[in-house]
């Protein structure tokens, strides 16, 4: 059971503090904060403190870090870590649902609402309910939003590639809008279905793909005040598990998948249709994995050359190719390359002015940023590094390269949402959005 719940900023300010059981005082927060910030870097989610302090004897703190804030719970018993972590994640997700975004500012402005949420979610340290459907009956406070929301704000370009097809794609900021806004009549009629995939790939120095895992999920964010049933149709030739095969040729495959409790699967086996009655707010409807078998070529290939030049100079020539179809585009590509420890200066030759490169002396790495990378294109860059005392052993310190990127409108598994039907049909103009994005969870290329 949970003794206290509190939200702290990274500088230790208390944003929310609620004591459920009266087992320890407010000073427990300070003890926790000192323990978490004692060492540099992130700390593991469970810290035990107060071995010396009598009042906090045997007290455990479980925390998650989200939105740059510590979401922490203290406990004197020995509960399931999964439960407490999932609860804190859920609290953060609900806060995001209700306040629009997750930041120090939004939490500060909506503290009354968060207290209200906590009051209904937990009683005497026991989790009562966390479902939006139940909670919405009890939450009375109105959300304070820092700025009025407008769906098609032109400034919000990015993640989902709003700039290309203004009329068809909702900007990524569309979902960072508080749920309770829909109380009024300001067109709370959207439903967003996002297919989000995270890619983790390791490519060996010989170009062979050594590991390729995809973790994906279908996330529904619903603003509709009342929606009885939604049907999401996936690719009919979707096959699950290693043995199963459906359709001919280009089947979409996944190894495993799991569904939200509320999803009805009676039409899934035959037609690959998910039926769900979405509650307001965000929920993950389906999660799936595909291991060690990419259906398409990995999105990026790198052809590096590392040479020793005269004197103490190191020449690094990187050629990066994007193997996506020409219609797709990769955004915010960032290439990080570890370099010898002693490197002092960098000169670069990049192929276009929007790219940039810099030497990060703290991480002893080189970072090459490409804001936009069209499919099928090939970019190259030449870096000259000045490394005093360069030896042949220093060359071994170069690499492996890691890539960060986003692929809007692209799923690596090829999973598609065929259709989205709401029953009964919503009166007025309900807007349904389906969006796809692939993130790089970890994309490493060895040199």
């Amino acid at each position, binding site marked *: 059971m949970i003794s206290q719940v509190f939200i702290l900023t990274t500088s230790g300010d*208390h*944003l929310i*503090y609620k004591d459920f059981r*009266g087992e320890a005082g407010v000073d427990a927060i*300070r003890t926790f904060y000192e323990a978490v910030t004692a060492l540099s870097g*992130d*700390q*593991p*989610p*469970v*810290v*035990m403190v107060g071995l010396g302090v009598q009042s906090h004897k045997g007290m*455990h703190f479980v*925390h*998650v*870090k989200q939105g740059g804030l510590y979401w922490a719970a203290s406990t004197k018993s020995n509960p*399931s*870590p*999964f439960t407490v*972590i*999932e609860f804190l*994640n859920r609290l953060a997700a609900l806060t995001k649902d209700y306040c629009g975004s997750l930041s120090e500012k939004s939490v500060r402005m909506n*503290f*009354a609402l968060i*207290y209200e949420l906590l*009051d209904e979610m937990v*009683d*005497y340290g*026991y989790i*009562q309910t*966390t479902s939006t459907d139940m909670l919405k*009956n009890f939450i*009375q*406070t109105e959300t304070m939003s820092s700025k009025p929301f407008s769906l098609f704000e032109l400034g919000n370009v990015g993640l989902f590639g709003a700039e290309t097809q203004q009329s068809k794609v909702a900007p990524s900021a569309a979902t960072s809008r508080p749920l309770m806004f829909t109380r009024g009549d300001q067109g709370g009629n959207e439903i967003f279905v996002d297919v989000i995939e*995270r890619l*983790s790939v*390791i490519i060996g120095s010989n170009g062979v793909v*050594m*590991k390729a*895992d995809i*973790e994906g999920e279908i996330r529904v964010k619903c603003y509709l005040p009342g929606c009885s049933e939604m049907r999401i149709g996936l690719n009919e030739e979707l096959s699950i598990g290693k043995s199963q095969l459906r359709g001919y040729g280009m089947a979409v495959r996944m190894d495993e998948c*799991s*569904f939200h*409790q509320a999803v009805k699967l009676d039409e899934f086996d035959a037609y690959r249709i998910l039926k769900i009655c979405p509650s307001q707010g965000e929920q993950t409807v389906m*999660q799936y*994995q595909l*291991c060690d078998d990419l259906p398409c070529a990995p999105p990026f290939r790198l052809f590096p050359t590392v040479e020793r030049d005269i004197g103490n100079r190191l020449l690094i020539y990187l050629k990066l190719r994007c193997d996506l179809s020409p219609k797709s585009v990769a955004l915010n590509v960032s290439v*990080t390359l*570890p370099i010898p420890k002693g490197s002092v200066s960098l000169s670069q030759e990049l192929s276009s002015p929007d790219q940039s490169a810099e030497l990060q002396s703290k*991480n002893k790495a080189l970072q090459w940023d490409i804001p936009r990378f069209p499919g099928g294109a090939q970019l190259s860059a030449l870096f000259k590094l000045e490394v005093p005392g360069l*030896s042949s*052993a*220093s060359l*071994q*310190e170069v690499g492996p390269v*890691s890539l*960060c990127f986003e692929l809007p409108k692209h799923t690596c598994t090829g999973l598609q949402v065929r259709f989205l039907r709401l029953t009964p049909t919503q009166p007025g103009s309900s807007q349904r959005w389906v969006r796809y994005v692939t993130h790089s969870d*970890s994309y*490493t290329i*060895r040199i």
Partner: protein
Amino acid sequence: MPYFGSEETVKELKRALSNPNIQSDRLRYRNYIFRVIRSMTQGLDVSALFMEMVKASATVDIVQKKLVYLYMCTYASLKPDLVLLAINTLRKDCADPNPMVRGLALRNMCNLRMPGITEYIQQPIMTGLRDKAPYVRRVAVLGCAKMQRLQTLTEIDATIVNELYGMLRDPDPVVMVNCLRALEEILQAEGGVVINKPIAHHLLNRLKDLDSWAQSEVLTFLLRYRPRSEDELFDILSLLDGFLQSGHTPVLAATLRLFLQLAAEHPAVQVDALVRARGPLLNACGAQSRELRFAGLCHVQKILKSQPGQYGAHYKRFFCSYSEPSYIKFRKIEILVELVNDENVGLVLEELRGYCTDVSLELAQAAIAAIGRIGRMYSEKCLDILTGLLGLKQEHITSAVVQTFRDLTWHCPQSTVLVCRAVEGCEETIQDAEGKQALLWLLGVHGGKINSAPYVLEGYINGLKSEMSSAVKVELLTAAVQLFLVRPAEMQDMLGRLLQYCIEEESDMCVRDRAILSYRLLQCGVAETRRVIQGPESDPSMGVIIGRPEEPVSNWVSTFNTLTPLCGRVTSPEPTTSGCTNHTTQNVVADPLAGTSEETEVYTPEDKQGVIGMSLGPTLLHEDFERLWLELKLSLRENLGFPGPRSSPETLQAALQLVKMQTLAFSRADTLPWKAYIYTHCSGTLVLAELLQPTAEPESDGMVLSIKQKPEDRQVLQEFVAVLKTVLQTLIKGTS
């Protein structure tokens, strides 16, 4: 944290809240209440406003009510007299037609933690238990637990307990779970809520209606239920089967633990459950939430202790991603070491090799130590990698590699030759004390095989004045004396200089005493010094063991799905080396001292484990065993009447380990006479045993068992003999 000028703020708020103009303006009034709560959250003491806040509670505005209640619950214990003013409003709210208001009032009334409140809340709670709205019943049920806590001294109210047991049948699932929780707290002194057969089956049947939080909690309550028969057990397991695949990790973990605990007597079922839960657990290890990932990894680590083979094929899931925080990376590296096998060793090592040049020094060192751990089984490949790393000439890498080398030669003597070759020339790169100590240890123990050893030592002796660490100096003294015994001609002069400096000029008493000790020892003659100083060059108990013994599931299942696996040790950069260092130095350097200190430890009563309370630890060193064996009288000699098992000694060792007997040494399988030495700790006594197969014809004569014991305990002795016989006979049956 106290804010400066807090008094001003409180005064201002007080003035505003009692201003009738503001009171009449709902929005402004509410805004001031917001400010009070905000100050309270920030740690400001606003208890002085209690009176004004109580007034504010009499409102129809629910938001305002909630905030005021929050305030009152926080400060109730400070202002018990003023709370009574609010009680009336609260009690009136408890009879409100709106169930939300009723619930709210009841919940907060029970949250007022102050003495004497019970007399006011008892009646509303009893009414609340029979309320028609489930929301109010939920609150009332937990209210019973709160009330019990407020009056710890009084007796448990049997009517409430009965009422709560009855309400386990409530149609609302949350009410049902709250009843369990409340009963657990109320009956804490009596061991918590009783889960008998009807209750257990009722809970199992309703499991599907609950939300996932309640599911995992009910599954935890079910842990205390013991099915009466096999049939019932398997009925329960098949009911639970679906939950093993749950996508919700808390439910999965709770189910898995329940499975493992219920099926304690059916190892096959346990293995099957672990296999089925593997997929979801692996998903937890790759979850988007880093914290969840970490929790998953910690639990996988537990499972690996019993089933190291299960995750071998999934090793790629444990490769680190560059964006992960270090606490996850360290766990992943530990897991990789544990799941390594013949198929994946190449790729795992290649991955670990990549981490060795990481920006984070701790990570690099952990990776190097991990390669060293794998090296105990796959020494050749690992030595190649480690030797290659020395070429980088990086301070921290070389230091970590040399430390790893030290441990490797200790655990795996066959690597000594290669290590001795690789270690030459490292001294220039090593700067830190830990690395220097490791290098000196290697030079001292294996100096005979390292050509440049005396010159390296000379370098250290010449630079002694600038050496800061006394640990390094002590290690240097030991190494110099050890090397002197092997290569006297080259060492004599510099050893003299070293001893002279340390005795005359050194300010650190520890170093000086060690130098004097060495000096006196040398005065006793070379033979005597050799006898004292030179210990085994490698861990004698490790020679024949390949691989770890698998731990039974029961060892960790009681902490599965609790915080314990997660708190363990906090991200230590070198989990392996630090332990070994102690071990080695104690054994080799301070051997005579270690003997006495260990002796006292040996006889401390151990936690009762194993068959008749036998336990493996604390580890007995070879020398101690030998000494004790010579000291003690024979307690029992018996001809077992059957020959030794024909299976390999390693099997015997593993089998004995399962019953908590440690095999200290044994001859090879084909030699005769065949001998094995065994020991165990058992209810405060130490049992030492020798198994002897004297003649060449195993059929003709049985094995001879000799036992010595300290202190004597006949009963334990008989039990020990019985267990040992059973193990041997089982093995004989198994092989014939």
